[in-house]
């Protein structure tokens, strides 16, 4: 009986979602997209980063929180927030830097100590270079980015560590329909070194990519979805594969004013595997769900 009720609820939610999409696409058709201004693509794809680098002279302050929920057992919730300043000194380069804060709330998770803490956790900087620019004759835009990060708190366990991460990404996007429909693609390589308080040194890396599709349903609202495929290695040079996962979910971008916007995304792990452990999903190196919420103010 409960299964039946759940199933009906599932269908109702599905129908509501379809109705919402139909309404949105109707509204999108009714609006004249040719009258809309161009949109900055960097934040319209959720966890996938678009190629935008801002405007020369533009400065921005953002608060960007990523939350991760769910391990194999117990309860697990961790967040990392970037307090970020970014500016665009030239028409090809964007620079970002800032501080990190983290929270960890977990209990009964295998291989992780119970913990409930809030802490300043590190700092980061990012350099983005626009390699291929979009024009009215070329819908493709590509940006290369490097982001060194230092942490004193481990992202997953919340333990005191010395961690150095060097994320390198290729951020590409395609304008499929002028001012209306965009596809985004990321390629990620993220090696890191962690030294624990007892002196152990661990090397690991993430490698993967994403694809996203975003529809601008109003001049200031973009809805979409994205899929990520991520692989984890116990070596920086990608030689010791330990598992992989596929994450999938919706994305939302809202521009409140010309100088203020927010972006949100939710990803759920829909497939994963751990090397040497015949269980479904990879909850050792990745989480069951992750969410992103970012607010930005330009000035």
């Amino acid at each position: 009986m409960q299964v039946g009720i759940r199933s009906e609820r599932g269908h109702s939610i599905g129908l509501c979602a379809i109705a919402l999409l139909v309404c949105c696409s109707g509204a999108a058709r009714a609006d004249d997209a040719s009258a809309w201004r161009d949109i900055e693509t960097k934040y319209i794809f959720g966890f996938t980063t678009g190629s935008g680098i801002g405007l020369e002279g533009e400065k921005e302050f953002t608060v960007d929180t990523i939350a991760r929920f769910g391990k194999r057992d117990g309860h697990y919730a961790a967040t990392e927030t970037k307090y970020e300043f970014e500016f665009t000194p030239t028409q090809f380069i964007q620079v970002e830097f800032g501080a990190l804060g983290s929270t960890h709330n977990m209990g009964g998770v295998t291989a992780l100590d119970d913990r409930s803490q809030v802490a300043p956790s590190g700092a980061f900087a990012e350099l983005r270079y626009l390699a291929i620019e979009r024009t009215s004759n070329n819908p493709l835009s590509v940006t290369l980015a490097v982001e060194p990060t230092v942490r004193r708190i481990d992202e997953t366990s919340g333990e005191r560590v010395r961690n150095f991460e060097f994320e390198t990404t290729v951020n590409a996007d395609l304008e499929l329909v002028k001012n209306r429909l965009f596809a985004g693609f990321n390629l990620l390589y993220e090696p890191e070194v962690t030294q624990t308080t007892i002196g152990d040194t661990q090397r690991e890396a993430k490698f993967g990519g994403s694809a996203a599709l975003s529809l601008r349903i109003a001049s200031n609202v973009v809805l979409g979805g994205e899929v990520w495929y991520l692989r984890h290695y116990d070596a920086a040079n990608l030689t010791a594969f330990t598992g992989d996962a596929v994450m999938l979910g919706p994305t939302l971008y809202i521009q409140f004013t010309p100088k203020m916007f927010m972006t949100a995304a939710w990803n759920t792990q829909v497939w994963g595997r751990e090397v040497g452990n015949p269980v479904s999903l990879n909850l050792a190196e990745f989480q069951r769900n992750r969410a992103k919420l970012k607010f930005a103010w330009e000035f």
Partner: protein
Amino acid sequence: MWFLKNLASGALCAMAMLAVSPSHAQQAAEVQVTYSRGQFQPGEVRAPADTPITFRVKNLDAKAMEFESKSLRVEKVVAANSEGVINVRALKPGRYEFYDDFNEKARGALTVQ
């Protein structure tokens, strides 16, 4: 660790080299636009391809405007009754829209050929 250091310094060097565009040495083409009664005059301007461009935006209105363009990747506030100068990189052929960020209706376009 050496691997990460080499990767970081290599990437930074590559980006620094790529950021130095040869087009900066070229003579810039000048484009003049007037902003009056909340409109750009002319609304459509032209410039040659592969040549840096200098926009001279003369704001004749009694309040400030912000010349902005996502595709040109520039923004500049031009005070009331004054002129703003905006330097733009050498562009590929195409149409590049610009607008006043303080006024939804004020729009113009640059056609590069």
